[in-house]
Every structure is written in structure tokens, then in C-alpha cells.
């Protein structure tokens, strides 16, 4: 009887968690070393209903990866101090909980030749800088399944 009550309680918690997950805004980890672009992306995504965590370099992103639960989407610059964009992609893909998180890569036009390499490394989409704000938001929303 008491074990039956426990199952009912667990069911209730699971349902509560599911509904909480359903209403919680999707989270985006933005890894961008240019403060202006980082703030710009944060602003655009926050206005579109995302919760944004901003990491100014690859090392800081790695620290967040070790500490926080996986976000809905990762937006990542290619050229990053300390831990480069490609290395970070490898680390994200190697971390079981994070392995399936969609990654959108940002690259400047002059680094466009990295795009093929990036898809090979496991990114899901890319946007070149300079970018159209509405395009960036639309692509992140698509990756987030919204």
C-alpha cells in the first residue's frame, strides 16, 4: 500500500517536471569573444523568448559545460581564445549529455571555408558574419524546435 503511494507520488513529480519543462523557456549557450556581438545575440535571443548564457571564450564555455545542464541550442563562434570553436564542438559532441545539443556556428565571411569542416565536425547549421538578426533568430528557433 505504501509502495503504491510512493509510485503515485513519483508519477506526480514526473508530471510536474514534464509540465515545468514544457513551459520553461529554451536556453541558449552563446560562445562569442566579441563583446558587442555577444551582447547583440543575447539581446536578440532574449527578446525572442530564450534564456541566454553568454561565454566570452572557449574556456568559460567549457566551465559552463561542466557545471550546467545542457542547453537547448549552442551558438558558437569559430575563432575563440583559449579553446577554439572546433575543439569545443568536439568536446560538446564527446560529452554524453551534450552530444545531441544542436550547434549553430558563426563564422566571418573570410572563414567561410571552415563551413565544410564544421559540418564534418558535427555542427547543425551555420550563419556568416555579418548576419541578419531575423535570420539568426529564425535559425536558432528552428534548431530549438519552436
Amino acid at each position, binding site marked *: 500500500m505504501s509502495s503504491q503511494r510512493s509510485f503515485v507520488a513519483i508519477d506526480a513529480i514526473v508530471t510536474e517536471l514534464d509540465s515545468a519543462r514544457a513551459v520553461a523557456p529554451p536556453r541558449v549557450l552563446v560562445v562569442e569573444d*566579441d563583446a558587442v556581438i555577444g551582447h547583440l545575440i543575447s539581446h536578440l535571443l532574449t527578446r525572442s523568448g530564450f534564456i541566454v548564457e553568454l561565454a566570452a571564450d572557449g574556456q568559460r564555455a567549457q566551465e559552463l559545460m561542466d557545471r550546467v545542464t545542457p542547453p537547448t541550442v549552442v551558438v558558437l563562434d569559430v575563432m575563440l581564445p583559449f579553446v577554439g570553436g572546433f575543439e569545443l564542438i568536439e568536446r560538446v559532441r564527446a560529452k554524453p549529455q551534450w552530444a545531441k545539443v544542436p550547434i549553430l556556428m558563426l563564422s566571418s565571411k573570410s572563414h567561410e571555408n571552415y563551413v565544410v569542416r564544421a559540418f564534418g565536425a558535427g555542427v547543425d547549421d551555420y550563419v556568416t558574419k555579418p*548576419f*541578419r538578426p531575423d535570420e539568426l533568430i529564425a535559425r536558432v528557433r528552428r534548431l530549438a524546435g519552436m
Partner: protein
Amino acid sequence: MVALVAIDLTIVRAIGGSRRRRHQELERQWLPLLIAGLEQPPDRLPLLQARDITWFCTLWIRLHDAIKGVHDPLHTIAARTGVADGVRRMFFRKNRGDRLLAIAMLGRLQDRTLWDELVQLASDRDVILSLGAAQSLVRIDATKAIRLLLPIIATRDDWTPATVAAMLELAGPTAISTELAEAIPRTPSSQAHRLIRFLRLAHADVAAPLLRSLIRHVEHVESVTACLRAFTDADDLDAVRPYLRHPRWEVRLRAVETLGRLATAEDEEQLTAMLADREWWVRYRTAHALCQLFANDLVRVSLLQAFHPDPFARDILAHVLAERAA
């Protein structure tokens, strides 16, 4: 003496620290306003002080260059701050950094008031200033600027082709096509290659017939190689193939490179023969061209490597196949 130097260093550090704090404060104040202003211009803006104009321009340009398609709100905010007056004053300062910033800002603001000064500056001996001025002219009025700039591009060997190409791409094919086609025949033959190489950025219906005619008539090797590099259509391969037998290796090299971009299966035999060229670079580019031609069938290239009668050909193919596999 040591004490004096220490005092000087302390003062310099204090000034640097105070300036850094001021800039951080300004960034906290202005960056959210500028970013939010992309969607909705703010009702009120802080007063932009004269001493902060340089800093403001730097921030404004960074944001301007990070985005595309939505620059109007940034222009509106810039107009409301009255920054343009400060930029014009900055243009005439002696400090080179300030002048460069002013030039960059004038272009992005599409401010025509110093057009003549920018035209003059585009011919300056200072490479950075002159290129900056040229780029700003293009941003202000691309067609008018290109007409003025092409004779300068033809004479300047200190403007790198990549930078000029970026400037012409900024202007766009519509602004450059007819102007380039008209400027090339007027340009002395020894300088024409500096313009011919940019025909690849022009509209194909203007560039292709001109290139076909030019390659038959130009004399300078630089112009021939510039023509070969500018071909972008496989229909032009008949004009390219004869240059595989040119006595100058630089020309053979460019011909092979063009084949690498445009070749069809019928070029296999000629390219295979080029693997035995006496010049290493020609052999190297030929090997790459063959790998490109058979990118989906590299086994075929491996077989070619194994059975080619020329040892240099086998060597270069092995080298390039190893490079591609790495």
C-alpha cells in the same frame, strides 16, 4: 631620476585606468541603447560629449559591421547624436588613427560633405589612408566611386588584390561591370592586368566576351595570366587550353589552375600529359586539378599515379594524394 620615472609611470597608469573606466561606463550606457535601437529607436539619448566621439564611433562601427540589412536605425541614432559634425572635424586632425576612424565613419554614414577630400586622399601615398578613403567612397556612391577609382587601381601596386576585390565586391557587379569593361582598353597595357583580374567579379555577360577578346590580343604575361584567372565558365575552356603549351611556366600554371576549376572529363588526357611538365609548380597544380576533376573517383587518380610512365608525375601525384588524405 628613478623616482621621476616611477612618478611618470604612475601618472600614465592612472590616466589609462581612468580612461578604461570611462570607456566601460560608456559601453554600459550606449551598447544596450544601440542594440535596442535596432528594433525601436530610443525616446531619449544621452548627450554625446566631444571627448567621447572617438569611442562612440568605434562602438558604432563594430555594431554596424556585425549586422546586415538593418542599418537604418543605427543611422537614425547617429544622426540624433550629431556625431557627423565631430567626425568631419576628426577627419582634419593630424592623428592618423583619428583620420582613419573618421574616414571609416564617413563611408558608413554615407556622408557626402567631404567627397572631394576623400577622392584626393584615395591617391595618397599612405596605403592604409588611401584604401580607407577608396572604400568609403564606394560606400557613399558605388558607381561614381568606381569610375574614379579604376584608374587609381590600375596604377597602385601597393593595394593588395584581395583588398581591392573586397572593395569591388562591396560595390557590387552592377556598379563595376560596365566601368571595368570601358576602363580596361583605356589602361596602358603594362597596367591592364591590375584591372583584368577583377573581371571575375563582373557580370558574366559583360566579362566573358571581353576576356575572350582580350586573351587573344594582350601581350604582357601578367595580362594573359590575369585573363586565365578571370575565366569562370566551362564554355571558355577552348580559349584556355592552348595556354597549356605556352613557353612561360607562369602562364601554363594559370591555365592548369583554370582547368582545375572548370575542366571536364575530356581534359583528362591533356592534364595527364601536364604532370610531366618541367616546372614543379605546374606539375603540382596539375595533380590538384586531376584530383578535383575526379573528386568522386580518387581511385582513378591512384591508378594514374601507379602507371604513369614519368617518375616526376608519379612522385607529384603521390604527394598530392597524400596531402588530400591527411
